[in-house]
């Protein structure tokens, strides 16, 4: 990672992972919110496994960044916010699969899903958008100039 091309390569993989994640999970969330009526929920959900792959790529490269320069991350308020929203997105996802996913899979393509599913979809979309923005802002809140705001 300290080689000239290591960091940019890891960043590029990180970006690709996030694009796959948004293109699959984000599109499925938008479908639950009512965009693209007529597309089958169950079929569109098959894209989500690619999103999980993208997420795993991001976790791997993210851990690579974190372990290479930990002080630049753990004291970074943008990174801390990003981790908080990842927790929110994770809990939201668990809640979805524990309660609403079977009902959504069984819903016909022409119908809308329940309001609980729509709330989950909205929380998911907003959290991932905040995560992306906070990720971009990491480099502008590097310690010690912006030392942990709430420490």
């Amino acid at each position: 990672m300290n080689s000239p091309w290591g960091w940019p390569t890891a960043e590029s993989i990180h970006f690709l992972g996030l694009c796959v994640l948004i293109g699959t999970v984000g599109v499925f969330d938008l479908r639950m919110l009512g965009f693209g009526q007529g597309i089958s929920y169950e079929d569109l959900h098959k894209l989500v496994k690619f999103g999980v792959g993208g997420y795993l790529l991001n976790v791997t490269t993210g851990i690579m960044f974190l372990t290479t320069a930990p002080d630049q991350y753990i004291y970074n308020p943008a990174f801390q916010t990003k981790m908080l929203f990842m927790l929110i997105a994770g809990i939201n996802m668990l809640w979805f699969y524990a309660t609403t996913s079977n009902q959504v899979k069984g819903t016909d393509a022409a119908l809308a899903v329940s309001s609980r599913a729509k709330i989950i979809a909205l929380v998911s979309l907003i959290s991932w958008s905040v995560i992306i923005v906070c990720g971009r802002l990491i480099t502008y809140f590097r310690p010690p100039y912006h030392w942990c705001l709430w420490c």
Partner: protein
Amino acid sequence: MAIVVGINLAIALRLIGWVPQFHLSPFNRFYQIHWFGAIVVLLSGIGLLLAYPAKALTNPVFYLKFAALSIGLLIAAWLQKQIQSNRLTNFAPAKIKAIAALSIVLWILAITAGRFLAYTNSVLLASRFF
């Protein structure tokens, strides 16, 4: 970026056949979101270019990114037109798969070239060097 590339990736995956063949005609709404994302990308790109023009325009990687991005968007527009007018079946399946695969490769190239821009420039401003 995530909206543009993500939606293109989702459609490409569907066209290559790695996911079940769900109906593509309702995808128009997603294309609207895609083009909104493309406008945001273009406007923010112009903003970034106006901030450091010499840094970008003297960097060949920038031209590579721009070429990959333009061709990727052209392919997206072409695919949208074929989907909207139900002309996808006019083409051989192998050709559609090849175009979808090309689209994926171009977007990966655009993102990687874009990321490497920050590390490969030789000047910062036209009037002075690093």
